[in-house]
């Protein structure tokens, strides 16, 4: 008797309509909450629309205005880069450092929880808390400096210091989250590799550079790219903490487009601004991803 061989068929044909039925909730969700709003936003960017009335088609005029005539838009783009780069350049190494420090510390779970706490706090509450700490005249820091005869910086009223302040608060807010990702990556490194490196005479610095960092590179890539994307699109902290001031010094593009849409009622122009920001973030994230992947090879 010839042994029976299992019939091989293409996967989707087996299920017929069943996989689509199970996927349907997800597909409907994605269509309604991602594709539809994105498509609507793209369409809006070619219109002039104040939501009290009907949209009117203006072609590329909103893009033309933002890219060629709106100096404020370009100033906000520069502010966005300063904020995002500051956040990534200081925030990512700091989170890595914290993860290293706590990976060998006693009670590391408690330390990790403490550093993660800001993530559980409402961002508006965080903004008000830091306003209280950083207020130029009555803030805790400047009062403390004043008590020892020092004049503290104008944290919130000097344009440069205001940007420094929002970047530092953003780092404080986000450090715990990135630290957890790095901690998980560090915990995943096989101890035997460290033992082997020690046997080969590698010191602490050499082990970090040649063993630990290459192994946790995927986590590093992930944290860097997601932090960059977060930094480029984040504005709620700035809205609550400085309102984009002083004199527009902390007004980032996401905040500018938010105001354009909901305060100035210029939905078309705001959509165009949001799409330009989306394109910038997409292109830079792609470049960043490729650069980090190249280096890991």
């Amino acid at each position, binding site marked *: 008797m010839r042994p029976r061989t299992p019939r091989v068929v293409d996967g989707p044909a087996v299920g017929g309509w069943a996989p689509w039925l199970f996927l349907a909730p997800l597909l409907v969700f994605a269509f309604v909450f991602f594709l539809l709003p994105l498509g609507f936003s793209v369409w809006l960017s070619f219109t002039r629309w*104040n*939501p*009290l*009335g009907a949209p009117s088609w203006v072609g590329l005029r909103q893009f033309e205005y933002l890219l060629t005539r709106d100096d404020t838009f370009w100033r906000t783009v520069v502010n966005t880069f300063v904020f995002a780069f500051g956040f990534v350049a200081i925030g990512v190494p700091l989170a890595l450092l914290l993860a290293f420090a706590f990976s060998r510390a006693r009670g590391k779970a408690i330390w990790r929880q403490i550093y993660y706490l800001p993530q559980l706090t409402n961002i508006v509450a965080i903004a008000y808390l830091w306003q209280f700490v950083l*207020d*130029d*005249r009555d803030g805790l820091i*400047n009062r403390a*400096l*004043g008590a020892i*005869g*020092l*004049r*503290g910086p*104008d944290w*919130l*009223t000097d344009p440069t210091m205001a940007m420094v302040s929002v970047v530092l608060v953003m780092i404080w807010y986000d450090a715990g989250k990135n630290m957890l990702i790095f901690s998980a990556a560090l915990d995943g490194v096989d101890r035997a590799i460290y033992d082997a490196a020690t046997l080969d005479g590698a010191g602490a610095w050499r082990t970090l550079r040649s063993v630990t960092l290459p192994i946790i590179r995927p986590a590093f890539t992930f944290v860097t790219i997601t932090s960059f994307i977060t930094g480029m699109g984040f504005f709620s902290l700035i809205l609550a903490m400085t*309102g984009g*001031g*002083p*004199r*527009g010094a902390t007004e980032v593009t996401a905040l500018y487009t938010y*105001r354009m849409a*909901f*305060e*100035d*009622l*210029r939905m078309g122009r705001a959509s165009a601004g949001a799409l330009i920001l989306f394109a910038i973030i997409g292109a830079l994230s792609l470049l960043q991803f490729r650069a980090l992947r190249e280096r890991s090879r």
Partner: protein
Amino acid sequence: MLHQRMAALACGLALGTPVAAIAQDGPLTVAMHYTQEQAAPLLACLDAYEADGVTAEYQQISYRDYLQTVLTGRLGGQSPDIYNVYSIWAAQMVDNGVLDAPPVAVSKLVSETYSAGTVDAVTIDGTVWGVPTEVSAYMLVSNMALLREAGYDAPPATWEELREIARTVTARNEQGRIETAGFAFADSSSGAGFVHPFYALLYSEGARPYSDDFSEANLDGPEAEAALERMAELVGDGITDLSVDAYDFPAGGIGMMIMANWLESEIRAGFGDSFEEDVVVSPIPAGADWRTLQYAFFMGVDSNSDRKEAAWDLVRHLNAPREDGPSCMGEMLSGLGALTANTADNAAMGEPDAFTAPYLAALEEGRAVSQPNVMQAAEIEGMMAQTFERVLAGDAEAGPALESLDGEVEDILFEFY
């Protein structure tokens, strides 16, 4: 019952039927930014209201979200019947057909019962669009305890006197930071803390920010430059800076500010028993022809309401004086310490307190000029505030900054006029 209403709503949406039509038998909705507690006298009137089977209910929408809520409500076909609109939103709402033009009787009531400047605040292109409710005006508010300590028994009568008194009042700590400020501007997210005093000074110079038809801005003229320079020299004199906030006046560390009347309750709470003695309101010392700014909220009816006539009847009912005292709205505003420009209400409420009296006098004497009802007012005033802040901080000169601002504002005006 709830399920039935939900089902009716869903069916109505599915069939494209306006929800207002479904709610035809429901109560009329009055949407305002006051909390239930603040609006208690008005709520009592709404609860008691019943006219030809029509009743009324209150909907609270926070001030910051008011316009957005109106927008999304209309998009979803769920707009209230009656709004309480900030006058600077009105031009856009009228331009887009959101508001219903009131019946002649309501327009007549407004023209006859309210002071002229307040009627202007609710008038767009010659048409009155609602009944004024809360009115705010700006005056000079002085902390007399600080002024007396500095050797002055009365608030300043001239701008030079204001500078002199403020200089004397100002005290700095060892690090050079202002501890007691002679004067302060308010740090408000809308920019009103700079823009509203600027309007008051500009009006006092005899100018207006726009041409009558709003096709041109008058921000590059000598009057605007003089007004802004007056503000900038206060910072230049070292008697205030941008870290000092007029909203801290109730704490007692600020000598003077140009402020609206609605801060009274907070100032009163801050000063406690010494309020009557230590807080004095006086005219903005900008010459014999001084003027100030007023802005108003007004009750208007949504053009989508299926019971516009009944809604206007309710608006009239809420704002008409009652036999035993002021109107429902007047009673509520009086309880809040807010102003009304309803002359019948003001007469019914008797003598105002010493803090409120100068504000009321400014309204009644025609000193208070309304905030311009221009399209994109919030956007324009945001731009003005940023420019003024740059000049006050010493980052720009008043003349060139105003010239540039004038061009930017005219770009916006060109879109609409």
